[in-house]
């Protein structure tokens, strides 16, 4: 992973809201369609890639998020170089699908607390009413006009993925919005 001092994000705390940068952490983009791809990915990651739209699967500290019918993002602290190498050799090199290390493309920010959805609702066109009452759900949407992936992994606990080049801007917006809670 890149060792650069960007984005400049320091953990913050607001009333009923904690914002933490969860970096460095490995993130992989998996793409594939056929049964062999699912079998291989499932065996290597010890996790079945979710096929139901807008859902996720988590085992230990590895989570697989549904992005589209043939695309997933997998992230977690248990992902190491050996796991990435075995995914690449068994999936990419055998043309079953594609495995891309997107650790440096996305920045992961964790938002925790009762006011998480208050802040997210301020800048997103997405309706969080059902989302906030359901665990292990995923949504790709806009937040302050920036593409984000949101993973609601526990009650009032959201992992937010934002592209690195937009991360500092979005971070400032989140902090600004949170200061009005």
């Amino acid at each position: 992973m890149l060792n650069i001092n960007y984005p400049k994000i320091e953990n913050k705390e607001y009333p009923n809201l904690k914002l933490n940068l969860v970096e460095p952490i490995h993130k992989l983009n998996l793409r594939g369609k056929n049964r062999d791809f699912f079998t291989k990915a499932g065996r290597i990651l010890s996790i079945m890639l979710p096929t139901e739209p807008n859902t996720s699967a988590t085992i230990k500290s590895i989570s697989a998020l549904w992005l589209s019918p043939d695309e997933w993002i997998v992230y977690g602290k248990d992902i190491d170089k050996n796991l990435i190498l075995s995914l690449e050799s068994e999936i990419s090199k055998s043309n079953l699908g594609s495995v891309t290390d997107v650790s440096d493309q996305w920045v992961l920010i964790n938002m925790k607390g009762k006011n998480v959805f208050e802040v997210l609702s301020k800048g997103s066109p997405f309706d969080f009413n059902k989302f906030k009452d359901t665990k292990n759900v995923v949504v790709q949407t806009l937040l302050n006009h920036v593409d984000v992936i949101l993973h609601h992994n526990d009650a009032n606990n959201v992992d937010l993925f934002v592209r690195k080049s937009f991360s500092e801007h979005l971070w400032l917006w989140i902090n600004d919005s949170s200061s009005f809670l």
Partner: protein
Amino acid sequence: MFIINCPFCGERDQSEFSAGGEAHIVRPKQPTELTDDEWADFLFMRKNIKGIQFERWNHSHGCRKWFNVIRDTSNDKIHAVYKMGEKPPSN
């Protein structure tokens, strides 16, 4: 503003989508045999109806998949949504 029911992700706000123009325009099998007028007609001329129109849309800020929409352009009412490669619903 209106809501589009993405066939992959479900109902989302229009701001998450990009319009891709008229749907079901078939590329000519032998473009070299067309006259300039026929080629220009294929490339540029669209129906642009005030009323029910078949359109392509892309969920650009979501799953990034293309799909078809039957939309009334006069009031933005969406009559049907269907995946690429599927036939339009008959009703």
